């Protein structure tokens, strides 16, 4: 670990929207507000109209239970909601129904942990608690917040379920925070409570301090990707101040993702008194052991366990398994693929993994896409690997198929269309080899002193044929011919 960060302490509060719920936390309005006409998914409850009362969405409680189980938290036997009072234009009631673990209140669940691996060292990061709360409405500005002449309020988001995951201050670097979020995202995906790839589905507040100094809270980091960047910036800011002999103050700062800096808020904002007190419109909710057992039964295999199983079932390395299981869709894809082909053994398992983690993942990254949004099927990748192993196409050629495969085109069709089946015919290869040798006397000469020139000549052959020549045969034939030529040349000398 970089020693540059050893005195840094980071704690994260992650707010995740339970996007997979059908309805909001306290009413039966449609939860899916994205792309919908503003203020169409509303009712007296999520608008906070006078006289309306909240009713807890039982499925939200089940989702919270799933996450708590997956994170290994202690679920409280009963919990109740609190009101967090503050005036803000995005708040329908000017209080938020949330949970509180002080003043007689309890979180939904306490403790839990997330294991990360950084520079091949494992570290367990302790969680403090998780709790449920409602999302405020969405404020829409004209242009930037600073210059917008007005703000519009869209209550479609008002009352959507958020789950807050609070870590202890146990992370010592922005990289650890990044790995923590990566694991959390994976667990959330496995529990099927939320799609964190949706815009605005997660928000992070970070507490950052340098050992022995006052901490700052950076709010409003609106995506996991931004967190590492914001943390790095804030740590640098704190260190610079200390270097100049200034003392740090406890404060709330705001992450400006356009300018990529943290901005201090007026201290007045920090001293907000939320006047938490119990929400009397709701009664305490009991979480019985029976209920927990039922949820547990339905819970899918979690990434850690799955990685262990992958090592056993598919003889993958620990490293490969852990990366492969991170994205549930990828891991499902993998299992669907390798299990569908009886002839596959450890070599093919590894090959399949390499393809998924290599070229396929790269393509998804470059195209900002996820596997379930593409038309690629597990079967296509099976066919591809079989063609390579049967020698019908070369690995090099196969790589050029990725783009077409993602559109769902069957492998054989791609091969046919491209005319890029492998050339294994000796005569055909010899013809190419001879051409190359004739065209490149300089390299041939060079071969005398530098045997590596062979590779360059093979490369020329491949280039001539779009990489279709069988690499093994080509190498053998090239070697044979160049040796003959060399012998001839030296005898002529």
């Amino acid at each position: 670990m970089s020693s540059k960060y050893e005195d840094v302490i980071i704690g994260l509060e992650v707010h995740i929207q339970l996007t997979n719920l059908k309805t909001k936390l306290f009413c039966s309005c449609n939860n899916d507000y994205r792309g919908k006409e503003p203020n169409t998914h509303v009712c007296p409850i999520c608008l906070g109209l006078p006289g309306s009362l909240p009713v807890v969405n039982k499925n939200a409680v089940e989702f919270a239970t799933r996450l708590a189980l997956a994170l290994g938290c202690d679920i409280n036997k009963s919990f109740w909601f609190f009101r967090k009072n503050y005036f803000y234009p995005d708040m329908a009631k000017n209080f938020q129904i949330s949970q509180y673990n002080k003043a007689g209140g309890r979180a939904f669940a306490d403790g839990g942990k997330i294991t990360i691996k950084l520079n091949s060292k494992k570290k367990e990061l302790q969680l403090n608690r998780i709790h449920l709360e409602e999302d405020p409405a969405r404020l829409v500005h004209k242009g930037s917040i600073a210059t917008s002449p007005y703000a519009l309020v869209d209550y479609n988001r008002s009352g959507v379920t958020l789950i807050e995951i609070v870590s202890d201050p146990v992370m010592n670097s922005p990289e650890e925070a990044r790995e923590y979020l990566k694991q959390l995202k994976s667990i959330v995906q496995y529990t099927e409570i939320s799609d964190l790839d949706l815009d605005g589905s997660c928000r992070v507040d970070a507490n950052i301090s340098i050992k022995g100094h006052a901490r700052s809270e950076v709010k409003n980091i609106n995506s996991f990707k931004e967190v590492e960047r914001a943390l790095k910036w804030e740590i640098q800011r704190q260190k610079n101040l200390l270097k100049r002999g200034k003392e740090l103050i406890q404060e709330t700062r705001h992450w400006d993702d356009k300018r990529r800096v943290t901005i201090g808020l007026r201290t007045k904002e920090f001293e907000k008194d939320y006047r938490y007190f119990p929400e009397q419109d709701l009664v305490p909710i009991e979480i019985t052991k029976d209920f927990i057992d039922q949820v547990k039964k339905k819970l899918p295999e979690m990434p850690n366990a799955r990685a262990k199983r992958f090592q056993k079932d598919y003889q993958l390395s620990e490293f490969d398994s852990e990366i492969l299981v991170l994205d549930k869709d990828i891991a499902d894809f993998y299992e669907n693929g390798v299990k569908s082909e009886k002839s596959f053994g450890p070599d093919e398992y590894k090959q399949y993994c390499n393809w998924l983690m290599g070229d396929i993942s790269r393509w998804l990254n470059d195209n900002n896409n996820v596997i379930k949004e593409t038309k690629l099927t597990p079967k296509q990748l099976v066919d591809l690997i079989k063609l390579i192993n049967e020698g019908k196409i070369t690995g090099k050629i196969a790589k050029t198929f990725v783009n077409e495969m993602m559109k769902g085109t069957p492998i054989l069709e791609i091969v046919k269309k491209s005319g890029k089946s492998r050339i294994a015919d000796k005569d055909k290869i010899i013809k190419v080899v001879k051409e190359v040798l004739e065209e490149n006397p300089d390299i041939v000469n060079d071969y005398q002193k530098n045997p590596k020139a062979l590779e360059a000549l093979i490369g020329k052959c491949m280039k001539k044929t779009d990489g279709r020549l069988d690499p093994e045969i080509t190498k053998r034939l090239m070697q044979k011919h160049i040796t003959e030529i060399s012998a001839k040349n030296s005898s002529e000398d």
Partner: protein
Amino acid sequence: MNIHEYMAFELIQKIKNKELQIQEIVQFYLERIKKTDNLIHSFVHISEEKALSEAKQKDNDLKNGKSIGKLYGLPIAVKDLICIKNSPTTCCSKILEGYYPPYNATVIERLIEKEGAICIGRTNMDEFAMGSSTENSCYGPTYNPWNLEYVPGGSSGGSGSSVASGQVIFSLGSDTGGSIRCPASYCGVVGLKPTYGRVSRYGLVSYANSLDQIGPLSRCVRDCALLLEIMAGFDPLDSTTVNVEVDNYTNELDKSIEGKTLGIPKEFFSEGLETDVKNKVYEGIKKLERLGVRTVEVSFPYLEYTIPTYYLIAMSEASSNLERYDGLRYGKMSDNLEGSVFDVFSRTRGEKFGPEVRRRIILGTYALSAGYYDMFYIKALKVRSLIKNDFQNAFKQCDVIVSPTMPTTAFKIGDLVDDPLQMYLMDVLTCPVNLAGLPALSIPCGFDSKNLPIGFQIIGNYFEEKLILNIGHLLEKELNIYRKLAPVNRGK
């Protein structure tokens, strides 16, 4: 006999027998409101046209053999803080001026949409139900129909005065610390505060949501029981309603109460009680003894902490419940929009809330603030549970507890306006019931020397509405003053 001299259950019989048409009844009451309300000011909104057209429709339906519900189109008055779809609901506050809810409260669904009552108008009240006199209304005070110089009680003052003066057959109120029973007592009508969780609060604009309950006001216990039977019961829209079966309250009103035990809490009869009030309540108890009940003295050691406990909890909850009124989504915003959105919020709330509401919001905000929360709110919750214990101990010895509803009869308009603390003390016999979440009935039991009505309170254990209605009904029969209507005059 005139229409307004009948009880609801009698009018229903007449409609069934085709002696009266619903239109005649509704028309009659509308006329009577027109004649008397310039003196009493029970109503802040009258739905004349709508009421008449509904009455006509119901007469037609009835003629065509269609069912029109158990309430047969009888006119009902609804306190101005129970939401009725597309009907002004302002809580008698300027901040809700022009607010028309887009939905019905559950009680409205049950009484009006399902069982066919007709809402004739919205009754005056203390702004957001904060008060015991109906003087804190943005529309001006309501006058007690027994003597127009006196308050009708509050906060459901208009609901009490309208029934007492025969402007309507029955009404709905809400009771947070006595807001149904106080006007019932001061106006000489029957008022019931049900067990917390017996009647849905969905659509009742919250004042103090752990204490609020909707309840009926009527001229006799039978009518009260009839309304409760319809209103009560579990509501999936209100998580605090309890899934306990609703009794058939009207069926057992005449059941013998022989052998029942009345608890008489000595602390409820202590200093501050007017002599006339004390005497009339004791007369009532004697009458019940003649019906075969026994009496036992019970004790409430924590009664003296009731008022501070009640007000701390009510104001704390109110400070949060009333945060939503900022003028942004409904109601009126300040005309002056200068400054930040927070400036406009503050200005709007400062301008549109009345002084009593502002006082309670400020006190409640203070009580919930960091550093004071444990000292005030948490402590109040602890005392609240001690008061609950007092009741549970008492109910080990008795079936119901009886007391005066109010320590005095109505006071003069303006007398306590500058003395909020004295006004708060008036709730001492009603608000312990709300703190404990119990049901309580107030029925008229006589008049004082000024000819102002006196209320007799019967407090039951949880979900014992049937028993307190039973006892109340038998006492009402014995006392036999329930047909008396308020004269709507300036007193003798």
